[in-house]
């Protein structure tokens, strides 16, 4: 060994490289900062979504309140109260004509000829009842129509005024802008200026001297000359003219006065109601003379009379309601929110009053989710139990990826399949003769709750399956082994040991499946039938064959055609917020269920 070897080598050590320092930070903290920045950006942007939704949606409450105020001030609300009786009367008429139709059907079944039926149904007595009844309300209808027109006129005038006021404000803003000497014409202004000048020249509204200058000005403006003092004056005078003209077009609505056009003639209205009542009573007396010769029909006729009696008793109340109606009653802010959350109508772009009530959409979403979950839960959970506990490993290796693959099928493809295949198949099935005994068959609409529900079930199954299978898979082996060791059969083990211990996981899987179903858009947009109405639960099971509309569907359908910032636009954002909150609640509670279970286990 030589001493040379012990000498330190001349090579520089590994760590000799100096650290790069920028702004007092070394590379590592710069990299950390970079990651931190991107993470912040991503997270902030994600939270922005929440903020933006709330920002756009929150304006709804105020705007809807204004709209409701106008509804009251213009007397449309008053007219709607008037309309209630008319609607009731129409319903009664409908009932009566149903009786008539049934009567004709019965007569046909009895084998009478067309002429004999006609003779019976069109006999003077029955004609007086059936036709006479529908004629009783003609005065009422005419009266209400007049009042409605008056109210709509007031409302429209108010809206025109609002629009004009906005134009006026724009002009005022422009004038102050132009008065400032640093003002420069933008391309848009230039075009507008030329247009207005040309109009004036054509209308010969200038004196000869000015006419010449303005003609010169037009040429100058076209070639892009900047504004000088003189032309500025001309521009200003033009703008002021416009301002005055617009101001003159505004005819302020004095609601206290104009409302009289709607609310006058109350006495006449009461008289109309009284004659209506008297006429109806007279006709009802006559109705005994019709020989229906059928117990069922006669009992329906009795029921009709009872309904009429109800109608009569409601009239005095109606009268006081009309008398007490107050145009100036306050519309509190909470009213607009509550009428959104509990409103039963979603009517947009109507000539009377737009209503934004979420109930029909919420009901539609819930009923479709209910149908979907009814199908998806047994199938999804059953398949999960089967693959994890019963099936052979080969089956397991095939089925698991297959069902996972289903979850990747785009929703629009499933919706398309529903329109083209399932909807048609369902209608075909319901029209088969040997299935005629099933109530509600044949179905009227091929696209209804059931169609959409079945397809959504197909979308929810993979979610439920995958999560439930995971939950079952995570059950400790020793539980199963202990159960088998004390002599339980495999199936007993599965249902009494494994499923109960995986229950929280399965429940959270079902909840997440629900979350997926309620947020699905394309399938419901294509296959739910899109009728905005609260489903009639009085139909029993028939409710599943009605077309509905959903929260997601309404956003997708109407978002494309709304004006930014309008009440409608904001109402759709409110629906979005409701969806957002619903999905958050579902997710959080699913996590809560799992967490609680885990604590119990440890």
């Amino acid at each position: 060994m030589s001493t040379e070897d012990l000498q330190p080598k001349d090579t520089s050590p590994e760590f000799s490289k100096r650290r790069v320092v920028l702004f007092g930070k070394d590379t590592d903290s710069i990299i950390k900062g970079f990651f931190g920045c991107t993470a912040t950006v991503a997270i902030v942007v994600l939270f922005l979504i929440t903020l933006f939704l709330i920002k756009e949606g929150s304006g709804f409450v105020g705007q809807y309140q204004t709209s409701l105020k106008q509804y009251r001030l213009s007397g449309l609300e008053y007219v709607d109260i008037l309309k209630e009786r008319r609607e009731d009367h129409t319903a009664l008429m409908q009932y009566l004509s149903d009786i008539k139709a049934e009567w004709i059907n019965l007569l046909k079944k009895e084998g009478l000829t067309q002429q004999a039926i006609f003779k019976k149904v069109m006999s003077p007595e029955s004609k007086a009842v059936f036709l006479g009844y529908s004629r009783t309300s003609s005065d009422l209808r005419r009266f209400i129509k007049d009042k409605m027109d008056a109210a709509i006129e007031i409302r429209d005038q108010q809206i025109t005024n609002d629009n004009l006021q906005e134009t006026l404000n724009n002009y005022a803003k422009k004038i102050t802008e132009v008065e400032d000497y640093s003002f420069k014409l933008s391309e848009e202004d230039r075009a507008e200026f030329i247009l207005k000048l040309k109009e004036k020249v054509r209308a010969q509204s200038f004196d000869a001297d000015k006419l010449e200058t303005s003609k010169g000005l037009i040429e100058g403006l076209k070639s892009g000359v900047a504004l000088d003092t003189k032309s500025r004056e001309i521009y200003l005078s033009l703008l002021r003219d416009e301002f005055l003209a617009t101001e003159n077009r505004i005819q302020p609505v004095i609601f206290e006065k104009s409302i009289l056009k709607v609310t006058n003639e109350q006495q006449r209205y009461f008289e109309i109601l009284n004659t209506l009542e008297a006429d109806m009573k007279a006709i009802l007396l006559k109705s005994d003379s019709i020989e229906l010769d059928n117990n069922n029909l006669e009992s329906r006729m009795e029921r009709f009379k009872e309904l009429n009696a109800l109608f009569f008793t409601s009239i005095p109340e109606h009268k006081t309601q009309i008398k007490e109606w107050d145009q100036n009653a306050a519309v509190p802010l909470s009213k607009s929110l509550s009428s959104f959350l509990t409103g039963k109508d979603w009517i947009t772009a109507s000539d009377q009053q737009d209503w934004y009530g979420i109930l029909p959409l919420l009901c539609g979403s819930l009923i479709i989710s209910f149908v979907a979950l009814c199908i998806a839960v047994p199938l999804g959970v059953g398949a999960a139990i089967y693959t994890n506990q019963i099936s052979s490993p080969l089956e397991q290796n095939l089925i698991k990826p297959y069902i996972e693959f289903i979850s990747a099928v785009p929703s629009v493809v499933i919706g398309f399949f529903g329109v083209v295949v399932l909807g048609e198949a369902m209608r075909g099935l319901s029209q088969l003769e040997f299935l005629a005994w099933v109530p509600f068959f044949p179905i009227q609409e091929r696209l209804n709750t059931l169609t959409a529900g079945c397809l959504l079930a197909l979308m929810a199954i993979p979610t439920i399956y995958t999560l439930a299978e995971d939950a079952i898979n995570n059950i400790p082996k020793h539980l199963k082994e202990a159960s088998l060791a004390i002599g339980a059969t495999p199936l007993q083990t599965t249902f009494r040991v494994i499923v109960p211990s995986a229950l929280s996981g399965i429940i959270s899987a079902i909840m997440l499946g629900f979350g997926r179903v309620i947020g699905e858009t394309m399938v419901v947009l294509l296959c739910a039938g899109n009728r905005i109405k609260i489903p009639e639960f009085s139909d029993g099971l028939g409710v599943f064959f009605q077309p509905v509309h959903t929260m997601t569907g309404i956003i997708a359908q109407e978002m494309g055609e709304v004006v930014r910032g309008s009440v409608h636009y904001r109402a759709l954002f409110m629906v979005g917020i409701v969806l957002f909150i619903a999905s958050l609640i579902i997710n959080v509670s699913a996590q809560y269920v799992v967490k609680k279970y885990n604590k119990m286990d440890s």
Partner: protein
Amino acid sequence: MKSDTNKQTTHLFSQRFSRNKVMELSITGILRFFTYLVIVLAGYLFLDITYNGSKAVFTKEAPFVNFQFLTEKPQTLHVFEPADIDTQLKSAKAEILTKSIKRRALSNSNYEAAEAFTLAIKDLNKEVKELDDLRKERRLMFSDTEYRALATTPSTKDFVYSTYAYSGGGIGPAIIGTILLVFGSILIALTLGVLCAVYLSEYSKPGKVLQSIRLSILNLSGVPSIVFGLFGFGLFVLYLDWGVSLMAGWFTLALMALPVIITASEESMRAIPKGFREGSLALGASKWTCIRTNVLPYAMPGILTSSIMGIARVAGETAPIMFTAAFALRDRLPWEGLENSTDFFFQGVMALPYHIYVVSSKIPQNEYTQNMQYGTAFVFLLIVGLFALSSIILRVKVRKKYDW
């Protein structure tokens, strides 16, 4: 004697059919039935779309792929059906209808007469089928460009003329639009998502804040896609005034995929054992070197899986692009007729999912429109399915490879 033979076969451990056994078997049967029901139903959907869609996409002759359908722009279809055959068909069908009504009327009373009607209807049905074949042979179909190029249009005396929107041509721009949308958005989402995940899992200090951020990101991944669409429409299209454009679509889709990618990438990074990091740090590596050499390579398969799943999700969504990026019809390809290069980012495109929505809701279903409908759905399903399949296969492989 009979009881004797029975006794011989039943020994102590032989299978006996008790009530419990039957119960078990039937429950197993029900569960198996459920599982296979799901498989069969989904299989029917796949087969139906594949079978009908392949008629549009594949051809019987040489190249076997209908490139026209895959590359051309969608057009209106002009159909000329031979008038004489059309009237014959109509009368034959009317005949069948009247005969079947008559038969129903005397179905029970006069058996022989009813039988005669049935035979007549059978004959008529055969005739209708022949006529139909003839009609298919003699009818003329033109796409918009072909129709305009015609020197003389077929006379309306000999032909019944009808048009079907969107049903002619192909889906080229829609395929290109979808690819552009998916790649742009996934680029944005992956960059932001992976960087964010690295920070969250490696640099951030564990605590309540981190926990709540993680939880809220997880919750955001469950928010319905239409809400993202609403947000994108409000912010990008209206507020930032980008209009219906590729940019707006990219950002909307990216934001939708972001929570999924962050959560999945972070999870796959956290799954790497602590020892990997500690080993490299103990050797004096800096934090970044440790992440670069000992964390990211092992997390990469997991990130890749999640990102491919993200692609499948992004490509499959319709609701977010309905108002932000998609046009129902646009006859220019994205790179055609651009004045400025920035215009490329601010133009709307056609997209496959939106095209499916349009052709399945806006036009009637019949033999002429079916090709377009099924063809689009098939191509779309194929593209999304390939992504999803590769992600599933990758995941299975990764699970086997890295099992610590």
